């Protein structure tokens, strides 16, 4: 059976669906147009689903509608209930579902190739389609098992510390080579064992790739898996000759790839070194013991309140610690009180703050911080020199001047906030014991103008708000 081209209107409908998806991403160029963008996305999806249903002989409509209702219900309820701080693990969980869906679709296409119109004149699956579905199932399986591990790490159900297997690079490269080799061989021999071996190896390598990667590298991993879920969809789009899937897959694939690139650049690390993994462990081993005890000053909530009231300008630098302490709401209250007293308050967000791209922005938005008070690294960094108070809450490595000066530091070269140039620095931290993720000491702790506020971030902000209102 040759592949019969569908009628022109069907191709057009899928094309329109793809254009809607492009518009959905385009809408995200500004918060003002973003909600409309999201609705474009929904429209594109509706067009794709309806077009598919009306152009195929549907033998099992009740079951299909049931599956949509069950899945849709679960998704909807989860989306309503999820806390904004849990967004990274939700996104990882969603990625795993796309991966699994791709695996299932590719498996179904292999078992019932006639339904997908990929059978050649010789009664076998077209060789090109075999490569496409082999790639589709492999990328899908990697996305699935990798995302499951990322989810477990982000949700704290598995230690965020890197797990380093001996010879892991050899094992990974061999597995990868085996997958590619088998997909190649699949074009001449369509035996089921090849297909299923590829699937099993791909599940395995997804798992192996993510276990050596530590917690703070998760922004890169989540972005990378985002990219993979796109490439999986694109590969299946090739198999199905479906424009909507190909366009979407390419969009999502590039999106995830660009986000990974941005994250890597913000950490001054190469993508390869992140993927090779084990950052935290190596740094702790080579970083050596903390330097000699140096004097530092402890401040109180009252000190912080007093200094900020006297200040003309305050820049707040939030980090993952703020998310852990759920301090975003009380932080915004603190900023509101200060603003009422005539202090200019801005927020400075580092690209890798938090556990996924844009994590801090969402949390601040949740706390009703207006987005025009929130600035990116390069837009605000020059302002620290003219700022009275830098208020660091839950961040550490992103304000470490060693990244600028100390060539031996594991974070050397990473762009950081110049908080050391501010007149006064308040640094909220649980205790002096812990150092940042990278395991390096931070000179900011010991500067003359720094006061350490040692407490839980939320508790400290509450105390500052109380002190401000006196």
């Amino acid at each position: 059976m040759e592949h019969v081209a569908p009628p022109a209107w069907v191709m057009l409908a899928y094309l329109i669906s793809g254009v809607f998806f492009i518009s959905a991403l385009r809408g995200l160029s500004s918060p003002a147009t973003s909600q409309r963008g999201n609705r474009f996305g929904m429209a594109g999806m509706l067009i794709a689903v309806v077009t598919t249903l009306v152009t195929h002989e549907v033998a099992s409509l009740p079951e299909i509608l049931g599956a949509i209702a069950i899945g849709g219900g679960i998704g909807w309820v989860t989306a309503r209930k999820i806390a904004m701080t849990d967004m990274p693990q939700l996104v990882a969980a969603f990625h795993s579902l796309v991966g699994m869906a791709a695996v299932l679709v590719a498996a179904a296409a292999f078992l019932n190739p006639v339904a997908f119109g990929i059978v050649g004149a010789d009664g076998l699956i077209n060789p090109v389609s075999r490569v496409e579905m082999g790639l589709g199932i492999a990328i899908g399986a990697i996305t699935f098992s990798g995302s499951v591990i990322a989810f477990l790490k982000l949700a704290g159900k598995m230690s965020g510390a890197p797990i380093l297997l001996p010879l892991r690079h050899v094992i990974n490269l061999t597995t990868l080579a085996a997958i590619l080799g088998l997909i190649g061989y699949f074009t001449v021999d369509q035996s089921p064992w090849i297909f299923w071996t590829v699937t099993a190896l791909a599940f395995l390598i997804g798992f192996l790739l993510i276990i050596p990667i530590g917690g703070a590298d998760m922004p890169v991993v989540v972005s990378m898996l985002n990219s993979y879920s796109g490439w999986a969809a694109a590969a299946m789009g090739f198999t199905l000759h479906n424009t909507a899937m190909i366009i979407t897959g390419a969009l999502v694939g590039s999106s995830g790839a660009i986000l990974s690139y941005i994250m890597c650049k913000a950490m001054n690390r190469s993508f390869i070194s992140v993927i090779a993994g084990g950052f935290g462990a190596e740094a702790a081993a080579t970083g050596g013991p903390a330097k000699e005890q140096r004097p530092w000053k402890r401040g109180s909530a009252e000190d912080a309140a007093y200094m900020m009231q006297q200040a003309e300008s305050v820049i707040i630098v939030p980090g993952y610690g703020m998310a852990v302490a759920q301090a975003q709401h009380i932080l915004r209250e603190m900023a509101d009180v200060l603003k009422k007293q005539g202090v200019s308050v801005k927020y400075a967000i580092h690209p890798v703050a938090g556990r996924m791209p844009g994590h801090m922005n969402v949390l601040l938005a949740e706390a009703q911080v207006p987005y025009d008070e929130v600035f990116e690294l390069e837009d605000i960094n020059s302002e620290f020199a003219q700022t009275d108070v830098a208020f660091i809450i839950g961040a550490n490595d992103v304000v470490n001047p060693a990244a600028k000066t100390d060539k031996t530091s594991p974070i050397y070269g990473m762009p950081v906030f110049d908080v050391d140039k501010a007149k006064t620095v308040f640094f909220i931290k649980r205790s002096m014991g812990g150092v940042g993720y990278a395991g390096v000491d931070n000179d900011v702790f010991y500067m003359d103008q720094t006061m350490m506020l040692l407490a839980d971030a939320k508790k400290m902000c509450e105390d500052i708000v109380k002190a401000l209102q006196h």
Partner: protein
Amino acid sequence: MDFISILSIFVMACFVGYYVVWSVTPALHTPLMAVTNAISSVIIVGALIAAAADGSTTAKWLGLIAVALASVNIFGGFAVTARMLAMYKKKER
């Protein structure tokens, strides 16, 4: 469609994706991930074809499970994106 036309669409779409995604403001990178997640579930098209077809019962059930998984993502992804985007407010003046 022949392979080359499909490949052309794919390559062009990669370029479109490249430029569109660079224009996304970093503040919206989390919603970007959520919405790309939702739209990559367009793979439901393949799942529907598998689920709708006669021929192989196994393939049909695999298709139905894939439809359910993709639906979690579609409804969940768009809903959570909408929820996040509704929170981004400008300063009240």
